Protein backbone atom coordinates (compact mmCIF):
# COMPACT_ATOMS: atom_id res chain seq x y z
CA UNK A 1 0.00 0.00 0.00
CA UNK A 2 1.13 3.48 -0.77
CA UNK A 3 0.80 6.14 1.90
CA UNK A 4 1.73 9.58 0.66
CA UNK A 5 2.58 12.35 3.07
CA UNK A 6 1.49 15.68 1.61
CA UNK A 7 0.56 19.12 2.87
CA UNK A 8 -0.17 21.97 0.52
CA UNK A 9 1.82 24.50 2.47
CA UNK A 10 5.56 23.94 2.68
CA UNK A 11 7.37 23.52 5.97
CA UNK A 12 4.52 21.91 7.86
CA UNK A 13 6.54 18.79 8.63
CA UNK A 14 5.97 16.33 5.76
CA UNK A 15 9.47 14.93 5.87
CA UNK A 16 9.51 14.79 9.67
CA UNK A 17 6.31 12.75 9.58
CA UNK A 18 7.42 10.57 6.65
CA UNK A 19 10.80 9.56 8.08
CA UNK A 20 9.55 8.97 11.60
CA UNK A 21 6.61 6.99 10.28
CA UNK A 22 8.91 4.85 8.13
CA UNK A 23 11.18 4.07 11.08
CA UNK A 24 8.15 3.25 13.23
CA UNK A 25 6.62 1.00 10.58
CA UNK A 26 9.87 -0.84 10.02
CA UNK A 27 10.08 -1.93 13.65
CA UNK A 28 9.13 -5.55 14.25
CA UNK A 29 7.14 -4.74 17.37
CA UNK A 30 4.88 -2.41 15.40
CA UNK A 31 4.28 -5.17 12.87
CA UNK A 32 2.97 -7.48 15.57
CA UNK A 33 0.61 -4.79 16.79
CA UNK A 34 -0.54 -4.10 13.23
CA UNK A 35 -1.49 -7.72 12.78
CA UNK A 36 -3.56 -7.54 15.94
CA UNK A 37 -5.19 -4.26 15.02
CA UNK A 38 -6.21 -5.05 11.48
CA UNK A 39 -6.70 -8.82 11.56
CA UNK A 40 -6.35 -8.78 7.82
CA UNK A 41 -2.64 -8.78 7.98
CA UNK A 42 -0.72 -12.00 8.20
CA UNK A 43 3.01 -12.33 8.67
CA UNK A 44 4.82 -10.52 5.86
CA UNK A 45 6.82 -12.71 3.54
CA UNK A 46 9.87 -10.58 3.93
CA UNK A 47 9.68 -8.51 7.11
CA UNK A 48 13.14 -7.07 6.50
CA UNK A 49 11.96 -5.18 3.48
CA UNK A 50 8.40 -4.47 4.47
CA UNK A 51 8.81 -0.70 4.40
CA UNK A 52 10.26 1.54 1.73
CA UNK A 53 10.55 5.31 1.86
CA UNK A 54 10.30 7.31 -1.35
CA UNK A 55 11.15 11.00 -1.36
CA UNK A 56 9.36 12.58 -4.33
CA UNK A 57 10.18 16.15 -3.36
CA UNK A 58 12.80 16.18 -6.09
CA UNK A 59 13.27 19.93 -5.94
CA UNK A 60 14.45 19.78 -2.35
CA UNK A 61 14.78 16.18 -1.22
CA UNK A 62 15.74 15.98 2.44
CA UNK A 63 14.56 12.64 3.83
CA UNK A 64 18.10 11.32 3.31
CA UNK A 65 19.42 13.86 5.82
CA UNK A 66 17.42 12.07 8.55
CA UNK A 67 17.63 8.52 7.23
CA UNK A 68 21.38 8.70 6.46
CA UNK A 69 21.29 5.84 3.95
CA UNK A 70 24.29 3.61 3.23
CA UNK A 71 25.51 2.13 -0.08
CA UNK A 72 23.87 4.85 -2.11
CA UNK A 73 23.57 4.12 -5.83
CA UNK A 74 23.05 7.09 -8.13
CA UNK A 75 21.72 6.94 -11.66
CA UNK A 76 21.17 9.72 -14.17
CA UNK A 77 17.61 10.23 -15.44
CA UNK A 78 16.83 11.80 -18.80
CA UNK A 79 13.74 12.56 -20.78
CA UNK A 80 13.27 12.40 -24.54
CA UNK A 81 13.54 15.61 -26.54
CA UNK A 82 13.59 15.82 -30.34
CA UNK A 83 16.87 16.02 -32.25
CA UNK A 84 16.53 16.94 -35.93
CA UNK A 85 18.70 15.58 -38.70
CA UNK A 86 18.67 18.61 -41.00
CA UNK A 87 19.88 16.53 -43.96
CA UNK A 88 16.52 14.69 -43.93
CA UNK A 89 14.23 17.61 -43.04
CA UNK A 90 11.91 18.81 -45.82
CA UNK A 91 10.42 21.74 -43.83
CA UNK A 92 6.93 20.30 -44.10
CA UNK A 93 6.05 21.75 -40.68
CA UNK A 94 4.19 18.66 -39.40
CA UNK A 95 6.25 18.54 -36.19
CA UNK A 96 5.42 22.12 -35.39
CA UNK A 97 1.70 21.51 -35.99
CA UNK A 98 1.43 18.61 -33.57
CA UNK A 99 3.40 20.22 -30.73
CA UNK A 100 1.10 21.77 -28.13
CA UNK A 101 3.98 23.34 -26.28
CA UNK A 102 5.83 25.14 -29.09
CA UNK A 103 8.85 23.05 -28.23
CA UNK A 104 9.64 22.56 -31.91
CA UNK A 105 9.15 25.52 -34.22
CA UNK A 106 10.03 26.24 -37.82
CA UNK A 107 11.29 29.75 -38.52
CA UNK A 108 12.65 30.89 -41.85
CA UNK A 109 13.88 27.42 -42.91
CA UNK A 110 15.32 26.76 -39.50
CA UNK A 111 14.00 24.23 -37.02
CA UNK A 112 14.25 25.56 -33.49
CA UNK A 113 13.96 23.25 -30.52
CA UNK A 114 13.15 24.52 -27.04
CA UNK A 115 14.02 21.48 -24.89
CA UNK A 116 12.70 23.11 -21.72
CA UNK A 117 9.22 23.30 -23.29
CA UNK A 118 9.14 19.66 -24.43
CA UNK A 119 6.85 17.23 -22.60
CA UNK A 120 8.41 14.17 -24.30
CA UNK A 121 5.21 13.01 -26.00
CA UNK A 122 7.18 11.93 -29.12
CA UNK A 123 4.41 13.29 -31.36
CA UNK A 124 6.95 15.04 -33.59
CA UNK A 125 8.96 11.83 -33.97
CA UNK A 126 5.81 9.99 -35.03
CA UNK A 127 4.50 12.50 -37.57
CA UNK A 128 7.80 13.29 -39.29
CA UNK A 129 7.36 11.79 -42.80
CA UNK A 130 11.08 11.52 -43.49
CA UNK A 131 12.23 10.23 -40.12
CA UNK A 132 14.36 13.33 -39.62
CA UNK A 133 13.46 13.61 -35.94
CA UNK A 134 15.44 11.34 -33.66
CA UNK A 135 15.01 10.80 -29.97
CA UNK A 136 17.52 12.93 -28.13
CA UNK A 137 17.76 13.33 -24.39
CA UNK A 138 17.72 16.05 -21.79
CA UNK A 139 19.07 15.26 -18.33
CA UNK A 140 16.38 15.79 -15.67
CA UNK A 141 18.36 14.81 -12.61
CA UNK A 142 19.30 11.73 -10.65
CA UNK A 143 17.60 8.78 -9.04
CA UNK A 144 19.28 7.67 -5.83
CA UNK A 145 18.70 4.72 -3.61
CA UNK A 146 20.30 3.52 -0.38
CA UNK A 147 19.70 1.43 2.73
CA UNK A 148 18.78 2.80 6.11
CA UNK A 149 20.14 1.20 9.26
CA UNK A 150 16.50 0.88 10.37
CA UNK A 151 15.91 -1.85 7.82
CA UNK A 152 14.33 -0.11 4.86
CA UNK A 153 15.38 1.33 1.55
CA UNK A 154 15.19 5.01 0.76
CA UNK A 155 14.78 6.12 -2.85
CA UNK A 156 14.81 9.73 -3.87
CA UNK A 157 15.19 12.00 -6.84
CA UNK A 158 17.34 15.08 -7.27
CA UNK A 159 16.25 17.52 -9.95
CA UNK A 160 19.08 19.04 -11.99
CA UNK A 161 19.74 22.64 -10.99
CA UNK A 162 18.06 24.84 -13.60
CA UNK A 163 15.54 22.21 -14.67
CA UNK A 164 11.97 23.52 -14.42
CA UNK A 165 10.00 20.35 -15.07
CA UNK A 166 9.91 17.97 -12.13
CA UNK A 167 6.98 15.61 -12.96
CA UNK A 168 8.93 13.42 -15.43
CA UNK A 169 11.59 12.82 -12.77
CA UNK A 170 8.95 12.24 -10.09
CA UNK A 171 7.39 9.60 -12.35
CA UNK A 172 10.74 7.84 -12.62
CA UNK A 173 11.12 7.92 -8.83
CA UNK A 174 7.59 6.53 -8.47
CA UNK A 175 8.35 3.68 -10.85
CA UNK A 176 10.57 2.22 -8.13
CA UNK A 177 7.55 1.77 -5.84
CA UNK A 178 6.97 -1.95 -5.55
CA UNK A 179 3.40 -2.04 -4.27
CA UNK A 180 0.10 -0.21 -4.45
CA UNK A 181 -3.51 -0.72 -5.42
CA UNK A 182 -4.10 -3.13 -8.19
CA UNK A 183 -0.71 -4.79 -8.04
CA UNK A 184 -1.70 -7.69 -5.78
CA UNK A 185 -4.39 -10.36 -5.85
CA UNK A 186 -6.20 -9.27 -2.69
CA UNK A 187 -6.40 -6.54 -0.10
CA UNK A 188 -4.57 -8.54 2.50
CA UNK A 189 -1.85 -9.40 0.03
CA UNK A 190 -1.35 -5.78 -0.85
CA UNK A 191 -1.34 -4.58 2.73
CA UNK A 192 1.06 -7.36 3.57
CA UNK A 193 3.22 -6.99 0.59
CA UNK A 194 4.85 -3.71 1.27
CA UNK A 195 4.28 -0.31 2.76
CA UNK A 196 5.60 2.51 0.62
CA UNK A 197 5.73 5.80 2.45
CA UNK A 198 6.01 8.61 -0.06
CA UNK A 199 7.14 12.10 0.86
CA UNK A 200 5.38 14.51 -1.50
CA UNK A 201 6.49 17.96 -2.63
CA UNK A 202 4.50 20.92 -1.26
CA UNK A 203 1.84 22.71 -3.28
CA UNK A 204 -1.08 21.49 -5.36
CA UNK A 205 0.35 21.81 -8.85
CA UNK A 206 1.75 19.12 -11.16
CA UNK A 207 4.61 17.89 -8.90
CA UNK A 208 2.26 17.26 -5.95
CA UNK A 209 -0.52 15.81 -8.14
CA UNK A 210 1.94 13.53 -9.96
CA UNK A 211 3.16 12.25 -6.60
CA UNK A 212 -0.28 11.77 -5.05
CA UNK A 213 -1.94 10.05 -8.00
CA UNK A 214 -2.42 6.35 -7.35
CA UNK A 215 -1.83 6.53 -3.60
CA UNK A 216 -3.94 4.33 -1.32
CA UNK A 217 -3.97 6.99 1.33
CA UNK A 218 -2.86 10.58 1.73
CA UNK A 219 -1.70 11.83 5.08
CA UNK A 220 -1.96 15.60 5.19
CA UNK A 221 0.36 17.37 7.56
CA UNK A 222 -1.27 20.62 8.58
CA UNK A 223 -0.32 23.52 10.78
CA UNK A 224 -2.76 25.71 12.63
CA UNK A 225 -2.24 28.97 10.77
CA UNK A 226 -4.52 30.75 8.29
CA UNK A 227 -1.96 30.11 5.54
CA UNK A 228 -1.71 26.46 6.58
CA UNK A 229 -5.48 26.08 6.47
CA UNK A 230 -5.77 27.77 3.08
CA UNK A 231 -3.25 25.44 1.45
CA UNK A 232 -4.62 22.40 3.23
CA UNK A 233 -8.05 23.12 1.74
CA UNK A 234 -6.54 23.37 -1.76
CA UNK A 235 -4.90 19.97 -1.33
CA UNK A 236 -8.11 18.43 -0.01
CA UNK A 237 -9.93 19.64 -3.15
CA UNK A 238 -7.21 18.14 -5.38
CA UNK A 239 -7.36 14.82 -3.51
CA UNK A 240 -11.13 14.63 -3.87
CA UNK A 241 -10.66 14.82 -7.65
CA UNK A 242 -7.92 12.20 -7.53
CA UNK A 243 -10.13 9.95 -5.43
CA UNK A 244 -7.48 9.38 -2.77
CA UNK A 245 -8.77 8.86 0.79
CA UNK A 246 -7.16 11.14 3.32
CA UNK A 247 -6.53 11.96 6.94
CA UNK A 248 -4.95 14.91 8.71
CA UNK A 249 -2.03 15.15 11.12
CA UNK A 250 -1.80 18.44 12.97
CA UNK A 251 1.82 19.30 13.55
CA UNK A 252 3.03 21.71 16.24
CA UNK A 253 -0.46 21.34 17.68
CA UNK A 254 -1.63 23.46 20.57
CA UNK A 255 -2.13 20.48 22.88
CA UNK A 256 -5.76 19.65 23.37
CA UNK A 257 -7.23 22.93 22.36
CA UNK A 258 -9.18 22.70 19.13
CA UNK A 259 -8.27 25.15 16.40
CA UNK A 260 -9.07 26.16 12.83
CA UNK A 261 -7.87 22.86 11.36
CA UNK A 262 -10.26 20.93 13.61
CA UNK A 263 -13.17 23.11 12.51
CA UNK A 264 -12.29 22.61 8.87
CA UNK A 265 -11.77 18.85 9.27
CA UNK A 266 -15.13 18.52 10.98
CA UNK A 267 -16.86 20.46 8.23
CA UNK A 268 -15.19 18.35 5.54
CA UNK A 269 -15.58 15.13 7.48
CA UNK A 270 -11.88 14.30 7.44
CA UNK A 271 -10.38 12.39 10.33
CA UNK A 272 -7.71 14.07 12.45
CA UNK A 273 -5.42 11.10 12.87
CA UNK A 274 -2.86 12.55 15.22
CA UNK A 275 -1.73 15.76 16.87
CA UNK A 276 2.01 16.17 17.18
CA UNK A 277 2.41 18.59 20.06
CA UNK A 278 4.40 21.78 19.71
CA UNK A 279 7.79 21.17 21.30
CA UNK A 280 10.99 23.17 21.30
CA UNK A 281 12.85 19.96 22.05
CA UNK A 282 11.44 18.32 18.90
CA UNK A 283 12.50 21.30 16.80
CA UNK A 284 16.06 21.01 18.15
CA UNK A 285 16.19 17.30 17.37
CA UNK A 286 14.98 17.87 13.80
CA UNK A 287 17.47 20.66 13.25
CA UNK A 288 20.26 18.23 14.12
CA UNK A 289 18.98 15.72 11.57
CA UNK A 290 17.94 13.23 14.26
CA UNK A 291 14.77 11.18 14.47
CA UNK A 292 12.03 12.16 16.91
CA UNK A 293 11.07 8.53 17.51
CA UNK A 294 14.62 7.70 18.61
CA UNK A 295 15.06 10.69 20.88
CA UNK A 296 11.72 11.25 22.59
CA UNK A 297 9.63 8.38 24.05
CA UNK A 298 6.41 10.40 23.76
CA UNK A 299 7.07 10.88 20.03
CA UNK A 300 7.70 7.18 19.61
CA UNK A 301 4.26 6.56 21.09
CA UNK A 302 2.73 9.33 19.01
CA UNK A 303 4.01 7.86 15.72
CA UNK A 304 3.08 4.32 16.68
CA UNK A 305 -0.51 5.42 17.28
CA UNK A 306 -0.51 7.28 14.01
CA UNK A 307 0.83 4.30 12.11
CA UNK A 308 -1.73 1.91 13.56
CA UNK A 309 -4.53 4.30 12.75
CA UNK A 310 -3.40 4.62 9.15
CA UNK A 311 -3.16 0.87 8.64
CA UNK A 312 -6.59 0.34 10.20
CA UNK A 313 -8.07 3.03 7.99
CA UNK A 314 -6.58 1.58 4.81
CA UNK A 315 -7.77 -1.88 5.78
CA UNK A 316 -11.24 -0.50 6.38
CA UNK A 317 -11.24 1.41 3.08
CA UNK A 318 -10.06 -1.66 1.24
CA UNK A 319 -12.77 -3.85 2.77
CA UNK A 320 -15.42 -1.38 1.70
CA UNK A 321 -14.25 -1.02 -1.86
CA UNK A 322 -14.17 -3.96 -4.22
CA UNK A 323 -10.60 -4.95 -4.76
CA UNK A 324 -9.62 -5.19 -8.39
CA UNK A 325 -6.31 -6.30 -9.71
CA UNK A 326 -5.05 -4.36 -12.67
CA UNK A 327 -1.90 -5.25 -14.50
CA UNK A 328 1.15 -3.18 -13.68
CA UNK A 329 1.38 -2.23 -17.34
CA UNK A 330 -2.04 -0.54 -17.32
CA UNK A 331 -1.24 1.30 -14.13
CA UNK A 332 1.96 2.66 -15.64
CA UNK A 333 0.55 3.67 -18.99
CA UNK A 334 -2.38 5.52 -17.47
CA UNK A 335 0.01 7.61 -15.42
CA UNK A 336 2.20 8.21 -18.48
CA UNK A 337 -0.72 9.60 -20.42
CA UNK A 338 -1.44 12.10 -17.74
CA UNK A 339 0.87 14.84 -18.97
CA UNK A 340 -1.70 17.48 -19.72
CA UNK A 341 -1.43 21.21 -19.64
CA UNK A 342 0.95 22.90 -17.34
CA UNK A 343 3.90 21.57 -15.49
Amino acid at each position, binding site marked *: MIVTVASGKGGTGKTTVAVNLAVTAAEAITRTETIKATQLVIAPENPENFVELIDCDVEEPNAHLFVKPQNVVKQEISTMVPAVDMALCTFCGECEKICR*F*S*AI*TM*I*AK*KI*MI*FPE*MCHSCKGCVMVCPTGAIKEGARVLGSLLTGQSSHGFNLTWGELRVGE*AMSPPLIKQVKKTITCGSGRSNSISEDINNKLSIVDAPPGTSCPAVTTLRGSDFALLVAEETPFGLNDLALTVEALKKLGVPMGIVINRADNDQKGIIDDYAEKENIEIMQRIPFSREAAKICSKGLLLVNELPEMKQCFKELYLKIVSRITQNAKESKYKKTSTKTATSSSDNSIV*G*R*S
Partner: protein
Amino acid sequence: MKVAVSSSGTNLDSPLDPRFGRASYFLIIDTDTLAFEVKVNDQNMNLPQGAGIQAGKIVANCGVDCLITGNCGPKAYNVLQAAGIKVFTGTKGNIKEVVELFKNGALQYSQGPNVDGHWV
Protein backbone atom coordinates in the same frame (compact mmCIF):
# COMPACT_ATOMS: atom_id res chain seq x y z
CA MET B 1 10.44 49.64 -43.96
CA LYS B 2 7.96 47.25 -42.37
CA VAL B 3 7.86 47.12 -38.57
CA ALA B 4 5.69 45.23 -36.09
CA VAL B 5 4.54 46.97 -32.91
CA SER B 6 2.80 45.18 -30.01
CA SER B 7 -0.41 47.12 -29.44
CA SER B 8 -3.32 47.27 -26.99
CA GLY B 9 -5.66 48.47 -29.72
CA THR B 10 -6.26 48.38 -33.44
CA ASN B 11 -5.26 51.90 -34.55
CA LEU B 12 -2.23 54.18 -34.43
CA ASP B 13 -3.51 56.08 -31.37
CA SER B 14 -3.56 52.92 -29.27
CA PRO B 15 -1.01 52.54 -26.49
CA LEU B 16 1.83 50.11 -27.10
CA ASP B 17 1.27 46.79 -25.30
CA PRO B 18 4.35 46.24 -23.11
CA ARG B 19 3.90 42.46 -23.35
CA PHE B 20 5.11 40.72 -26.47
CA GLY B 21 3.91 37.09 -26.26
CA ARG B 22 0.52 37.98 -24.85
CA ALA B 23 0.05 41.35 -26.56
CA SER B 24 -3.51 41.91 -27.76
CA TYR B 25 -2.55 42.90 -31.30
CA PHE B 26 0.39 43.47 -33.56
CA LEU B 27 0.23 46.42 -35.92
CA ILE B 28 2.30 45.79 -39.03
CA ILE B 29 3.25 49.28 -40.14
CA ASP B 30 4.89 50.67 -43.24
CA THR B 31 7.04 53.41 -41.71
CA ASP B 32 7.03 55.51 -44.88
CA THR B 33 3.28 55.70 -45.51
CA LEU B 34 2.02 54.78 -42.02
CA ALA B 35 -0.30 52.28 -43.73
CA PHE B 36 -0.88 49.39 -41.38
CA GLU B 37 -2.38 45.98 -40.99
CA VAL B 38 -3.77 44.53 -37.73
CA LYS B 39 -2.79 41.04 -36.60
CA VAL B 40 -4.90 39.67 -33.78
CA ASN B 41 -2.72 37.78 -31.32
CA ASP B 42 -5.47 35.74 -29.67
CA GLN B 43 -4.30 32.20 -30.39
CA ASN B 44 -1.78 32.60 -27.57
CA MET B 45 -4.17 33.73 -24.89
CA ASN B 46 -5.05 30.25 -23.69
CA LEU B 47 -1.61 28.73 -24.06
CA PRO B 48 -0.10 27.90 -20.70
CA GLN B 49 3.38 28.32 -22.13
CA GLY B 50 5.09 29.14 -25.37
CA ALA B 51 3.21 32.38 -26.10
CA GLY B 52 6.44 34.18 -26.94
CA ILE B 53 7.43 31.51 -29.46
CA GLN B 54 4.05 31.67 -31.19
CA ALA B 55 4.00 35.47 -31.22
CA GLY B 56 7.51 35.41 -32.65
CA LYS B 57 6.27 33.19 -35.47
CA ILE B 58 3.35 35.50 -36.28
CA VAL B 59 5.64 38.49 -36.50
CA ALA B 60 8.20 36.53 -38.54
CA ASN B 61 5.53 35.43 -41.02
CA CYS B 62 4.57 39.07 -41.62
CA GLY B 63 7.97 39.64 -43.15
CA VAL B 64 8.88 42.61 -40.95
CA ASP B 65 12.40 43.89 -40.42
CA CYS B 66 11.92 45.13 -36.86
CA LEU B 67 9.76 44.54 -33.82
CA ILE B 68 9.02 47.31 -31.33
CA THR B 69 7.67 46.19 -27.97
CA GLY B 70 8.01 46.56 -24.20
CA ASN B 71 9.39 43.27 -22.95
CA CYS B 72 10.81 40.34 -24.83
CA GLY B 73 11.88 37.07 -23.16
CA PRO B 74 14.64 34.67 -24.18
CA LYS B 75 12.60 32.18 -26.23
CA ALA B 76 10.76 34.85 -28.21
CA TYR B 77 14.05 36.65 -28.74
CA ASN B 78 15.64 33.49 -30.15
CA VAL B 79 12.77 33.00 -32.59
CA LEU B 80 13.00 36.63 -33.75
CA GLN B 81 16.77 36.32 -34.05
CA ALA B 82 16.40 33.21 -36.20
CA ALA B 83 14.01 35.12 -38.45
CA GLY B 84 16.51 37.99 -38.70
CA ILE B 85 14.22 40.52 -37.01
CA LYS B 86 15.73 43.33 -34.96
CA VAL B 87 14.04 43.76 -31.58
CA PHE B 88 13.48 47.08 -29.80
CA THR B 89 12.45 46.68 -26.16
CA GLY B 90 11.59 49.02 -23.30
CA THR B 91 9.40 51.20 -25.52
CA LYS B 92 6.39 53.16 -24.21
CA GLY B 93 3.76 55.53 -25.59
CA ASN B 94 1.13 55.39 -28.33
CA ILE B 95 1.89 53.65 -31.58
CA LYS B 96 2.19 56.81 -33.65
CA GLU B 97 4.71 58.36 -31.24
CA VAL B 98 6.68 55.15 -31.10
CA VAL B 99 6.92 54.88 -34.88
CA GLU B 100 8.03 58.53 -35.00
CA LEU B 101 10.78 57.83 -32.44
CA PHE B 102 11.82 54.81 -34.45
CA LYS B 103 12.04 56.78 -37.69
CA ASN B 104 14.14 59.45 -35.98
CA GLY B 105 16.56 56.79 -34.82
CA ALA B 106 15.73 57.52 -31.17
CA LEU B 107 15.20 53.83 -30.36
CA GLN B 108 18.08 51.45 -29.82
CA TYR B 109 17.76 47.82 -30.70
CA SER B 110 18.37 45.14 -28.10
CA GLN B 111 21.32 42.80 -28.02
CA GLY B 112 19.31 40.22 -26.11
CA PRO B 113 16.11 39.54 -24.20
CA ASN B 114 15.33 42.18 -21.57
CA VAL B 115 13.28 39.95 -19.26
CA ASP B 116 13.55 36.35 -18.04
CA GLY B 117 11.35 33.60 -19.33
CA HIS B 118 8.54 32.67 -17.02
CA TRP B 119 6.83 29.52 -15.90
CA VAL B 120 3.18 29.68 -15.07
